[in-house]
């Protein structure tokens, strides 16, 4: 008899174990929903699966009565644009600041303390300031996402840059490289895959800031819709939206992971060819 700590599930059993919690959760939901709907057929708190499907169909495949647009896809497009722009800006700024402060002690001395302090400011606390400075349009939403995750990415890249062995820098200098050559040819290629990792880790925060910004002032977006229909407790719309956001977040994460594999095969394989 193997000790429990050494027992490995078989492939099929592992899959089953992985799915089981989801099945249990869905079953619990359906039971709860049935129980509430039996008492009050108009109950909105836990809509049945068919009501959720109706809600989704209405939002995604039927043009809105008021504007003639397909709200679900319009919301998705606006939210993804905001998120994409915010993260792109944050990634570029984060890379620049992280690389410069990680590689050049002169810059690190002046920027590191500032970066540390800035990264500690809760972005949601300065939301009113952002809206006053950047207005209520798209800019302030993108800026909130960018401000929220840039410090995180910058600090991460700074650490990763500092972790690159000094031997490499010494060697490059022995071969006659100057500062900018070292940064672009030695440090940058090694940092790029780390940047993808940092972006993947900051996606969760990115979504949080996106939805917070859309809750304050917006005319469309996934977060906007959820906060709007909350006013009349349309859980049949909220639940599919939440599932969709989770799914989008998952897909973005997976595609970034695959992209890292494709672009930097040496990084993923850990040096093996």
């Amino acid at each position, binding site marked *: 008899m193997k000790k429990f700590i050494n027992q490995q599930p078989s492939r099929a059993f592992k899959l089953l174990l992985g799915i089981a919690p989801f099945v249990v959760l869905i079953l619990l939901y359906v039971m709860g929903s049935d129980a509430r709907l039996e008492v*009050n*057929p*108009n*109950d*909105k*708190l836990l809509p049945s699966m068919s009501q959720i499907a*109706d809600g989704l169909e*209405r939002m995604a495949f039927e043009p809105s*009565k008021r504007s003639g647009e397909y709200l679900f896809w319009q919301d998705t497009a606006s939210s993804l644009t905001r998120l994409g722009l915010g993260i792109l800006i944050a990634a570029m700024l984060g890379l620049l600041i992280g690389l410069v402060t990680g590689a050049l002690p002169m810059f690190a001395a002046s920027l590191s303390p500032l970066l540390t302090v800035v990264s500690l400011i809760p972005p949601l606390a300065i*939301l*009113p300031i952002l*809206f*006053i400075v950047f*207005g*209520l*349009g798209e800019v302030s939403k993108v800026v909130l996402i960018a401000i929220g995750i840039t410090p995180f990415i910058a600090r991460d890249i700074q650490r990763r840059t500092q972790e690159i062995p000094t031997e490499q820098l010494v060697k490059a200098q022995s071969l006659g490289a100057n500062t900018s050559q070292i940064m672009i040819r030695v440090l940058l290629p090694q940092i790029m895959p780390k940047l993808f990792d940092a972006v993947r880790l900051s996606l969760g925060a990115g979504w949080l800031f996106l939805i917070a910004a859309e*809750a*304050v*002032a*917006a*005319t469309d977006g996934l977060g*906007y819709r959820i*906060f*709007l229909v*909350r*006013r*009349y*407790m349309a859980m049949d719309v909220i639940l599919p939206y939440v599932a969709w956001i989770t799914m989008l977040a998952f897909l973005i994460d997976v595609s970034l992971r695959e992209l890292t594999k494709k672009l930097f095969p040496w990084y993923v394989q850990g040096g093996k060819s």
Partner: protein
Amino acid sequence: MKRFAALILVLSLSSVAQAAESFKICWSIYVGWMPWAYGAEQGVVKKWADKYGIDIEVVQINDYIESINQYTAGAFDACTMTNMDALTIPAAGGVDSTALVVGDFSNGNDGVVLKGKSKLADIKGQQVNLVELSVSHYLLARGLESVGLSEKDLSVVNTSDADMVAVYGTDDVTAVATWNPLLSEITAMPNSTKVFDSSMIPGEIIDLLVINTETLKANPKLGKALVGAWYEIMAVMSGSDKAGVEAKTHMATASGTDLAGYEAQLASTEMFYTPAAALELTNSEKLLATMEHVAKFSFDHGLLGDGAPDAGFIGIEMPAGTFGDKGNIKFRFDPSYMTMAAEGKL
């Protein structure tokens, strides 16, 4: 061991006994609902609950919509809300609800403010920041009707009430619809004109204490205790003597302002200090017309649910008549408890 079992038995019995007689009501901060804060803290609610041998717990919920959602989900037996939200959240959610106390109507507490323009018709083509689907939205729709415009002539931007004052300061924002105390702060800013307010549609935005109809039917004692407590508080509050000022100061502090600020809000609120005044509106034909407007607005904005074929899908029962489907009455105005209060029978 035996003693322990007996203890368990006694404890469980007492909790059952209490569960049968114990009720929870919720309220949120608003000028017309502050009396509940006063009544709960000064023991007026407890006094009336004791009189009828029941237990009433009064809970403050910070977020207004959340309080209604909690009530609709069944966490509370009664809750404060406006006539429109009572129709679109609990009633549309199948929770048969009764307006037990008709407390006041907004008489200028909700308004539309324009920056740099002086009349409502100028709103055409502008972006209007407001809490979508709220009474502000309803007020705006009623205002637009009065100048021959419709919502198609402008665009609304859903804006959180918590940030309304802050965003009004930005250049992008030229028009807002909101309520007090935000409204008075925004109107006080330079270059701003209040072009429409709820005093122009008096008696349409009504603040209520809404109670679950089944609970009320099964426990008339709860209705009596709540209405009794309410009018005792009203009597104290309406007095200009020391007790009245003290009560209002208490309510002002609890809502985060001072006596002068609270008095200013009261000035744009038509409080029904006596049951007779509340009954006048409740029994009137006008209420019937108001609820028809509200139901129509709600239907046009999809608030009655997608199964609703027309504005009358949810029946609203009022003393002057029933609006909508008599087979699907989910929202009722019940004057009987206020009448008991008027006749001094509580």
